[in-house]
């Protein structure tokens, strides 16, 4: 599936509606993600940003609309197969505290993809090198700083060779001095051609790395466009108001 400019569309979201009880969190969201694109999603908290990400890998059920991966409704995929193609990084890292770094990385590839342990370990070492944590391979999560934990969590998601990475406020739980190391890893990843959806408040990152910024407020996409357009010259009053407060 391609868009009108001939770019490959990897994810297409149509009229997505998500309710928690009576509360409507997403009120008909439409969105397309091109392969290798990095989209930064911004907006006030409670606006539905995280919920949107969580619908894409089916951590949340949604009540209306459709999400397509490679042109096929995600409901038609086996849910576990779908999730191996979509990596996710959480605000709270969610490393498994009873396993060391290596075990955190190799569990899913061995159990889900059934690859050999030796191969999984090689791959883990390669990815830990990339995120600069090869010396922590035997450490347990509690022995790591927040930034190190999040870098391990990114490496863990990459172990499954995902085609898309979802980042749900990956630096919000970090001390300010640790934010940079995580953003650097994410930048490298974006530059290597990974398709990424990032919910974040880091405007510097958005400006530098994003191909597109999407502003979500009150369950709808208020505005979207290239970083320079959105950040310098927002069209909608809500976007202006949000950016004024955050910058």
């Amino acid at each position, binding site marked *: 599936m391609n868009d009108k400019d001939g770019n490959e569309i990897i994810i297409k979201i149509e009229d997505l509606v998500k309710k928690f009880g009576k509360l409507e969190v997403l009120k008909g969201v439409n969105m397309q993600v091109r392969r290798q694109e990095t989209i930064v999603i911004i907006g006030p908290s409670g606006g539905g940003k995280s919920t949107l990400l969580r619908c894409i890998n089916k951590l949340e059920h949604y009540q209306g609309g459709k999400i397509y991966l490679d042109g096929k409704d995600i409901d038609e995929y086996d849910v*576990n197969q779908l999730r191996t193609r979509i990596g996710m990084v*959480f605000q*709270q890292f969610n490393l498994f*505290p009873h396993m060391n770094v290596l075990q955190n990385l190799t*569990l899913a590839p061995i*159990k*889900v993809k059934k690859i050999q342990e030796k191969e999984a370990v090689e791959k883990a070492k390669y990815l830990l090198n990339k995120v600069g944590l090869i010396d922590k391979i035997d450490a347990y999560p509690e022995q790591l700083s927040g930034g190190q934990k999040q870098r391990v*969590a990114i490496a*863990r998601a990459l172990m499954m060779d995902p085609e898309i990475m979802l980042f749900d406020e990956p630096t919000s739980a970090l001390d300010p001095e640790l934010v940079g190391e995580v953003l650097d890893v994410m930048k490298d990843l974006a530059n290597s051609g990974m398709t990424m959806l990032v919910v974040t408040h880091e405007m510097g990152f958005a400006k530098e790395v994003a191909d597109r910024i999407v502003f979500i407020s009150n369950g709808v996409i208020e505005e979207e466009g290239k970083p320079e357009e959105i950040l310098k010259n927002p069209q909608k009053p809500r976007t202006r108001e949000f950016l004024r407060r955050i910058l």
Partner: protein
Amino acid sequence: MEAVLELFKNFQFLLIGAWETLKLTAFSVGIGLILGTFIGMGRLSKIKLINYPCTAYVEFLRGTPLLVQISIIYFGLPQLGIQLAPYPAAITALGLNSGAYIAEIVRAGIQSIPKGQYEAARSLGLTHWQSMRYVILPQAFRNILPALGNEFITLTKDSSLASVIGVSELMRAGQFVISRTFQTFSIYFGIAFIYFVMTFVISRLVRYVERRMATA
């Protein structure tokens, strides 16, 4: 004086009974642990067909006396054509009973693990069972170890109820010695002492394992 002498003379019989008590308890806890893990998970299931029977099981077995359960298994099941000898009947009853209590412990243990752990496991493509087995249960068991230790101790003491269907555990062994020596007080004291040593050792063992897991 004679009372003390008789206690020493017959202590070996009490020890044989104590060994039976330990075996009985260990088997029952083993059954209870397996049963309790599955029923505890079943209690958290959103599927009513799984949730309701598991809840009913827990409520029924916690809501009826163990003595009655033992009697039903031994004296009642033959009505359905199931003849169990005293020892298997006792293990069955104690195992089913501790299964209900352990199910509640396991349920609380699973609930004590942050939701993000399960979500992280599922987002990596692990199935529900894989997430439980590799991520949630290992952490839950570490948290519930003290409670499981308590259950082990409770069951050690409760296993004395198996004497009513003739299992020669510590309590019953003691009664045999009393009926021969007529030394009621000293033998009961000896029985109490052995129960205490057993439960004390178990509680120390649990604490040791707990500490080892904490540093791991």
